[in-house]
């Protein structure tokens, strides 16, 4: 697989703040690549540089071989952007919004008409096409936004927080569209998100970004495996004085055991297979279990591992909060 996006020490400074700090990654053709990080980590800045909206302070990137600084007009031709904000024009109908974009991408009128119907049916908006966007719900606006980004069938589609502020069903629908695009059009998709589940279900590979630096790049499952497996938590009713540690450690898949009173926290590989063996060992010693749980690693834990912080604990800057409120307001309006 050829790499379709390649960054070379991509850097952006705003005054003293380094928003994106010598970032290097490559995205393969036909891949769904996610940039995961909290608000203010530099995700949008990165996407804005890749889509030629911002000039890098240092370093550069190439998109389909075109340099984002030197060949910006070529880059613009091959990419599509679905921004974080809802930018469709409320006073126009869905179809008029798409027609405007088709003309900005210099599509022939007949081609444009055909494309518009195609993208509208892809996002299931055909029946609302001739209604003013004003009357659309937040989810419909986001879908129209997606359709706009697709109008010229870009080679690479950039999605900035594609499901920010949307309800659970709409999010699932948007994820389906994105997967379908990759399948039907072999489109490369670059998205940013601060939702773990989004990165997990959608992306082939993710890059975790924090304070403008890439911490790690890998597939979600590899990242989870890198945590060293599953955790079994065990509470015993009796046997405070009995030490089970050595008994557990004889099981080959067990890597680490921590004991606190009669509470055990055991790090294992292949938790499902090891759990019955552990239970058997306990019963053999005539001890009784009051509670047992198997914890599979999540991207949340991966995130904690690589950044030292839990994603949900990180508060956004006031600018982000304000922006979020504005988006929510428009969605609810």
């Amino acid at each position: 697989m050829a790499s379709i996006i390649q960054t070379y020490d991509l850097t952006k400074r705003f005054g003293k703040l380094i928003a994106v700090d010598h970032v290097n990654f490559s995205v393969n053709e036909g891949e769904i690549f996610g940039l995961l990080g909290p608000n203010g980590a530099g995700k949008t800045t990165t996407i804005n540089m890749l889509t030629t909206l911002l000039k890098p302070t240092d370093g550069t990137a190439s998109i389909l071989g075109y340099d984002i600084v030197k060949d910006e007009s070529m880059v613009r031709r091959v990419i599509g952007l679905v921004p974080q904000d809802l930018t469709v024009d409320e006073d126009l109908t869905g179809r008029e919004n798409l027609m405007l974009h088709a003309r900005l991408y210099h599509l022939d009128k007949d081609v444009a008409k055909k494309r518009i119907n195609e993208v509208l049916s892809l996002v299931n908006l055909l029946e609302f096409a001739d209604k003013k966007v004003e009357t659309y719900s937040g989810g419909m606006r986001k879908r129209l936004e997606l359709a706009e980004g697709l109008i010229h069938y870009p080679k690479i589609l950039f999605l900035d927080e594609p499901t920010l502020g949307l309800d659970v069903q709409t999010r699932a629908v948007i994820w389906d569209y994105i997967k379908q695009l990759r399948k039907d059009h072999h489109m490369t998709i670059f998205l940013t998100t601060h939702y773990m589940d989004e990165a997990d279900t959608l992306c082939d590979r993710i890059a975790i970004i924090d304070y403008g630096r890439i911490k790690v790049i890998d597939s979600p499952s590899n990242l989870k495996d890198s945590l060293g497996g599953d955790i079994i938590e065990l509470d015993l009713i009796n046997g405070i004085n009995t030490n089970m540690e050595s008994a557990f450690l004889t099981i080959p898949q067990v890597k680490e055991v921590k004991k606190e009173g009669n509470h055990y926290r055991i790090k294992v590989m292949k938790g499902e297979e090891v759990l019955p063996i552990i239970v058997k060992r306990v019963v053999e010693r005539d001890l009784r279990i009051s509670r047992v749980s198997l914890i599979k690693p999540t991207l949340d834990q991966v995130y904690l591992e690589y950044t030292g912080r839990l994603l949900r604990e990180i508060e956004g800057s006031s600018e982000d909060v304000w922006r979020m409120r504005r988006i929510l307001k428009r969605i609810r309006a």
Partner: protein
Amino acid sequence: MIDEIFALIMREVKKWVREPFLILMMIIQPTLWLGLFGKAFNLSGLISIPPEIIKELPPDKTHIISDLFNRILQNTFGGTTDYFTYISAGMLSIVILFTSMFSGMSIVWDRRFGFLNKLLVAPISRCSIIIAKVSFSVLRGIVQALLVFSIALAFGLKLTHNFNLINLLGILTTLLLLSIGLSSLFIAITIRIKSWEAHAAVVNLLNLPLMFASSALFPIKQMPSWLQMIAKFNPISYASDNIRIFILSNEFNMQILLHNFEFLIIFALTFSIVGILVAERMLKFD
């Protein structure tokens, strides 16, 4: 490039004609100005001769005196004794000023709602974005000025008795030149402004001097000399004077007309070129 400019203008036109309320509001304000200000200020009443004085004067002299007063008025108010007619001509330029201010506002909104970013990602020339904004502003300004012109006609604007196509074309050309210059100026000023509050502050600062330090509402001759200095560099003065000439006669003083047009053409050219260049450079994201 023509195609993308046209597409962008069409977007604005669609938005505009679908808001009849806004169009109405934009016309009501100048109409109120005309009605309240233009009708209230009765020039010939201001210096009419009280009846007791007329009685004392020999009848053949009153005619000469009233003729004298009329001449003084005509001389001061550029050829009319009717203040409503005077201010109507100026109000057409003011309408252009107001619509140009709004064209800057629409860029602030487009930036605010992220629409501008979409345009910047599209493979179009950045000049097209600005040219489309200026063109639409010009179109809207002229249409609204013509609407106000017809309202003024209905309310007693006194046209010259042989008003013809040349007069109308003269008015349109004047409005066009003024509109191109002012729209470019306001777009260049507001291109980097991100909040509409800041925009309103900047625009209001320019609005008042442009409006009052001109011959749109009052004759320049009556102003103190320092104000005259400003008014003489104000394109609205030249446009108002020009429109007044075309409304009041068709025996033109070519020297004055040419001088006015010369100023307006230089104004429109300079500001549109400088404005578009500045705006195009400033049309960055951060």
